[in-house]
């Protein structure tokens, strides 16, 4: 299993540009997540999905959009990049059943700089 994969590893964007961060998992997990990590801070949840076709906002969703057309893929879209979106972005997945919380598996991250 490749686990959780993310592309690209690094990206520099100009203000106002758009891009899509790709995330895929091959563990047949139902839940997927997008986080951002800023220096000196823990990870903050941007969006999450409990299954194909279902997404919901996390703690910091503004400026981002997601879709989940398949179990495996969960892309994150930045429409109008702003310097405040400079961060490291992590995708994660987990299997969740009822109220039992299983561990999340993280991808290697995408380092995004907006200038």
């Amino acid at each position, binding site marked *: 299993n490749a686990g959780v994969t993310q592309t690209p590893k690094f990206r520099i964007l100009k203000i106002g540009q758009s891009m899509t961060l790709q995330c895929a998992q091959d563990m047949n997990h139902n839940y997927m997540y997008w986080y951002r990590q800023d220096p000196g801070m823990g990870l903050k949840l941007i969006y999450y999905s409990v299954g194909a076709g279902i997404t919901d906002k996390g703690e910091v969703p503004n400026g981002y959009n997601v879709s989940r057309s398949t179990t495996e893929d969960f892309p994150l879209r930045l429409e109008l990049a702003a310097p405040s979106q400079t961060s490291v972005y*992590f995708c994660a997945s987990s299997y969740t059943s009822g109220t039992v919380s299983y561990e999340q598996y993280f991808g290697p991250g995408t380092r995004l700089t907006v200038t």
Partner: protein
Amino acid sequence: AQSVTQLDSHVSVSEGTPVLLRCNYSSSYSPSLFWYVQHPNKGLQLLLKYTSAATLVKGINGFEAEFKKSETSFHLTKPSAHMSDAAEYFCVVAGGGNKLTFGTGTQLKVEL
């Protein structure tokens, strides 16, 4: 709602000495708790997890943590630090929908 407080932003130990990374949590119900480690420029790796079974949880690389409900704590320990343990450690609590709330992290430095 749940929250996590990591009491030390930086911890420095000598190689071969014990490690203690402190974490307090707040949760309105019986929590699931995790410790993750992040090495420089890497993703997060699960060290150990507590999900209401044994209160003393053993993880990878000799780490363990004890869940203390009366103290709302979940401190991470290791008897003897190794240079390779130098990394950032996150205490995490899981809420509804398996949404994780992360602490702000503890940077562990291991000196010779």
